């Protein structure tokens, strides 16, 4: 039946109507993500709690930005709103000029834990977005295999998640988010659960993948060095209410190796962020 439909180009036509990102990508400027006065309130027994207060920022295409801040500063809430999983209270977030009102196919999300489905093989996990969109798997198997070899998981396609180490599982999660070449890749402390050594390795890997693919990345972390190492720009956030208190441009040359971490410029950046926290007594308590 699908073959018949394809013969008449109906599926292709339908897909062209369903995914509006393709034509918009061409006419939009280099600004990919724009967030205007975004606020989020939660109502609780003691009244309304302000998780995010009038957040505004924009990200250009292919830029890597990091959000750094202590817990409770609304980082994860921000990510959920950007992923379309949570509605905002006021303001809006736009991707390619279109407000984000729900989950979208052109957004990739990597969560803190890999969240792989244990009954699916690595390849099937990577193909999950394809299955959700009810598209033909066969067309995307090649892309999935290429992506898996990009993240260094060649030969693991038919393994199950539980056979992989924590770092490898997170690589699978990144691969899954990269399927469909998302216009925006959201990462919520993706390496927070890994040990320090693996984490450094994964930072290098992520930089390599990003340099190759040039997706727009919004990376959330509570590690200042990690943010400085990875990002072009770092947004410093403070809690109660969650807000951006400072934006810092990182001008270290790419690709950054682990030796970049010992350079004085690197630590100058780290120190300037840390002083922001100290000056505003953000992490005092």
């Amino acid at each position: 039946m699908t073959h018949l439909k394809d013969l008449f180009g109906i599926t292709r036509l339908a897909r062209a109507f369903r995914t509006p990102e393709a034509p918009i990508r061409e006419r939009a400027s280099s600004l990919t993500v724009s967030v205007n006065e975004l606020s989020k309130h939660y109502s609780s027994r003691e009244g309304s709690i302000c998780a995010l207060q009038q957040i505004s920022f924009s990200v250009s295409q292919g830029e890597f930005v990091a959000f750094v801040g202590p817990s409770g500063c609304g980082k994860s809430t921000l990510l959920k709103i950007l992923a379309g999983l949570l509605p905002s209270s006021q303001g809006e977030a736009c991707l390619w000029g279109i407000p984000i009102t729900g989950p979208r196919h052109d957004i990739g999300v990597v969560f803190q834990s890999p969240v792989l489905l244990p009954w699916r093989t690595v390849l099937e996990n990577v193909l999950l977005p394809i299955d959700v969109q009810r598209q033909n798997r066969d067309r995307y198997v090649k892309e999935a295999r290429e992506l898996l070899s990009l993240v260094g998981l060649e030969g693991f396609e038919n393994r199950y998640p539980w056979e992989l180490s924590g770092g490898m599982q997170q690589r699978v999660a990144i691969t899954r988010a990269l399927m469909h070449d998302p216009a925006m890749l959201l990462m919520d402390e993706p390496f927070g659960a890994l040990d320090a050594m693996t984490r450094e390795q994964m930072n290098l890997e992520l930089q390599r993948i990003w340099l190759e693919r040039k997706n727009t990345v919004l990376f959330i972390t509570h590690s200042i060095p990690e943010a400085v190492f990875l990002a072009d720009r770092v947004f410093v956030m403070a809690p109660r209410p969650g807000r951006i208190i400072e934006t810092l441009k990182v001008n270290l040359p790419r690709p950054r190796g682990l030796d970049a971490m010992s350079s004085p410029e690197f630590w100058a950046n780290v120190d300037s962020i840390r002083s922001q926290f100290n000056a505003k007594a953000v992490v005092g308590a």
Partner: protein
Amino acid sequence: MHSRRNIALAVLLFCATALTGELIIRGFKVPTYIFPAPSQVAIALWRGFASGVYQKNLLHTLLETLLGFLLGAGLGFLVGTAVALNRYVEHFLYPYIVMFQSVPKVALAPLVVVWFGLGLKAQVVNAALVASFPVLVNTIVGLKSADEDRINLVRSLGASKNQVFWMLRVPNALPFVMAGVDVAMVFALIGAIVAEFVGAEAGLGMLIQSMNFNMDIAGQFSVLLILSILGLLLNRCIHLIRRRVLFWDPSEKERLERQEVTI
């Protein structure tokens, strides 16, 4: 652990136990109507199979157990799904389910026989009734226990409610459902036998009942032996299916490893 030596040892142990039993019962002159000697049970077993009575009744009981199991497990899964998915169904139905759960289901067997007669139907219905509850309860728990992160992930990919159900909730509930199915198989056999006790035209339970009237204790023991082997085989079948379906479940893997250690 399944080496030839161990199998030989197991057989030897069985023979030694039977022989000891035989000697004790004969030595103390225990009357047959209290406790028959293993040899008498073996003779009863032989006689039953040679006359074809056991095969016929075994088949009958097997049929009603399997039909009752399928019907009960299927019904339990469907109702469980409805309760887990729909708030209204849950609100109005769940209290009755909880209430009904505390009733010993076998106590309904006399009613079932009155409603459905002495034929196969009554036994199947009773088996299904008893078997449905573990599946029903476990399906509800399983479908509701989907991990928040996983739901967020699938939703972030743009999945519809339907897709979240089939791609996430159902596979996620399978370990629970299979645990319920495991119990349901044994329950179905119990339900079938109890229905036969109340009144039936054929089946191993009916056979036990009539042997009891005739004080054929050795015969009863031989039927009990068949029943225990039947129960064991049915249980094994479920375990095989479970191992295939839940190859990915960590608790299943643990169980397999444990079995390797203990057997």
